[in-house]
């Protein structure tokens, strides 16, 4: 970040969406993320797994600069989105977050109507010229969030009145309404029951056709079910990164193997 040399804008393939190089994160004196290099592909679901406190959520929040809101958090190294360093001084985090949407662990709809929840992002980014445009965006987003059929008759009802699973899908619809390119999901199913989890997982698989999805999860089964690439974090290090199938069947690192087989974590 302090390195002011011209950026190397070499992207290996068109497929790489996000590329982190030598990323270090400090919380005060704590070194939370140690020298992480990772390349996240477009139109792919990438899962971050690892024991609690290993830094996977911290790293996820670096990808749309949500850590900026934490005063004591400091980031070094670079994270490139389409070849541009998102920690460059010229980058406005607000524009970045419109491109990199986020879904949080606990469903957090605004205490407003379902319609306003989805319409808020497009409104502040000026994506709709008029009410009709906005209606179209809201419907499209709610359809992508696989919740349209359940709420189309009560768009004026408060978003907080929905069930937990519906709230989370509403939050996903809200995140996709700003037409992001990357969707970050921080344990999106940890507060949901198995049925709602199944619905959200199905949705994630559908979203893959249009977005690059990064999901943090505690459930290894979930990572295996929804992701194509998996990254295993341990004590702030990125231990292993590769094809999901390979990570779960033939892990190279002994730490990955012991985590997957339940010996650590």
């Amino acid at each position, binding site marked *: 970040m302090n390195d002011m040399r011209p950026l190397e804008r070499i992207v290996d393939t068109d497929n790489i969406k996000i590329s982190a190089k030598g990323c270090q994160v400090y919380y005060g004196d704590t070194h939370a993320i140690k020298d992480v290099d990772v390349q996240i592909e477009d139109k792919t679901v990438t899962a971050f797994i690892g024991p609690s406190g290993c830094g996977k959520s911290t790293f996820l929040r670096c990808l749309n600069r949500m850590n900026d*809101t934490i*005063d004591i958090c400091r980031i070094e190294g670079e994270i490139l989105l389409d070849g541009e360093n998102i920690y460059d001084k010229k980058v406005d985090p607000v524009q970045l*977050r419109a491109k990199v949407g986020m879904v949080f662990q606990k469903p*957090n*709809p605004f*205490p407003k109507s379902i319609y306003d929840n989805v319409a808020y*992002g497009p409104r502040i980014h000026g994506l709709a010229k008029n009410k009709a445009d906005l209606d179209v965006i809201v419907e499209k987003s709610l359809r992508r969030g696989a919740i349209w059929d359940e709420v189309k008759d009560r768009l004026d009802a408060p978003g907080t009145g929905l069930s937990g699973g519906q709230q989370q899908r509403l939050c996903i619809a809200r995140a996709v309404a700003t037409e992001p390119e990357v969707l970050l999901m921080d344990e999106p199913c940890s507060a949901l029951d198995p049925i709602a989890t199944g619905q959200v997982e199905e949705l994630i698989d559908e979203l893959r056709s249009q977005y690059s999805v990064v999901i943090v999860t505690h459930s290894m089964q979930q990572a295996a079910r929804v992701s194509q690439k998996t990254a295993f974090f341990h004590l702030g290090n990125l231990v292993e990164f590769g094809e999901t199938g390979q990570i779960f069947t033939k892990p190279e690192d002994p730490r990955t193997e012991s985590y997957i087989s339940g010996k650590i974590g």
Partner: protein
Amino acid sequence: MADATANSPRRHGSLTTTDPRTKRRNAAEARFRAYGIAAIGLGLFFLVVLATSIIRSGVPAFTTTVVSLEMNVSQAEYDEAESGMLKTAAYTKLFITKLGAQLREAGIGDDVQDDAIERIMGKVGSDMRSFYQENPDSIGETVTFTLNASSRVDGYFKGRVNRETLVDSRFLVATDLDVVDALTEAGIITRQFDWGFLTGKDAGVDNPGGAGIGASVIGSFFMMLVVLVLSLPIGVAASIYLEEFAPKNRWTDIIEVNISNLAAVPSIVFGILGLAVFIQFAGLPQSAPLVGGLVLTLMTLPTIIISTRASLKAVPPSIRDAALGVGASKMQAVFHHVLPLAAPGILTGTIIGLAQALGETAPLLLIGMVGFVAREYPGGFIEGFVEPNSAMPAQIYTWAARSDVAFYEKAWGGIIVLLVFLLIMNAIAIVLRRRFERRW
């Protein structure tokens, strides 16, 4: 039973018998509940005592004793009264003569002396004169005057004055009370609700019957307007900055501690600060609601900042995350989402701060709102801020300090008016809270 326990391997006794330790614990709990109920009972008892004593002492202030009289002042009498040196005395004389004549005509007390009537009536001349000055058309016509009797006659009806207390008095003598009784029987002297107390202005020390709290209510109103207009935006803006935007470092810590300390500074300190800064340095007018409002703003700001910050803190961080996550700027997140959710708390804190300021007396002592006799209403809206006036608590203080017992009663009445205003404000706070409260 004992055998069974002895034979069985269980380590605890039967569940149906309580062991000594449990008994002690239960007794401690019962004692604690008793203390709690006793404390609440004591509090309620004092509340009832306070309320009854306020109502008992204050309610008489809302009634007054009046003399109603139909009379006709001719142009000649008017001219004669206006030509004299002591004009109001001439009117008083006119009134007394006419009342005396009517009494004798009606056959009440043939032996009633005019000076007895003068003692009963007090100074009615000025009221009469101002009536004829404002309504010159009424000269020569029959007009019904309803004028306050003297404060001692009023006191006779309210139980403050009786024949024994009047033995040495030269303002009202015991035999006058017989006349008063006769006039009451004739329906000339009556008691009625005293609208003048609610709407009137303060009067001089010799005229408690004419004193009202109205002008100082207006003074308080203008002061509260200044407080609201200044402290709400400044307080809310300061808290939003401190809570949402300011970096957390040594400086903001110092500011935070100082704001909390400021809330505990005695109000008289703000008063002397106001005297030094607003009146002596800035040259603002003395006794003006503007200055009072500025001083009370200083006092109210910490309260508003503390309550606003508390309600901003109570908004779950997930709402901020949600807004930032869809690409809202920090300010959009605060103004679109956090502030509306914190609004009920902010409103409640503001109204409670205003209610505190409304009842505050000490700072007003120092900026001259106490010595001032609020004889006039402000001339207009702007004048309401800068013309000298009193405020409700300052007026109550002034009345309580005057020697005439009738003013003491007025002070209690003023307290009732003040408490009614406070109750209304608290009720508004509750209603707003209920209305704007949203769940998340």
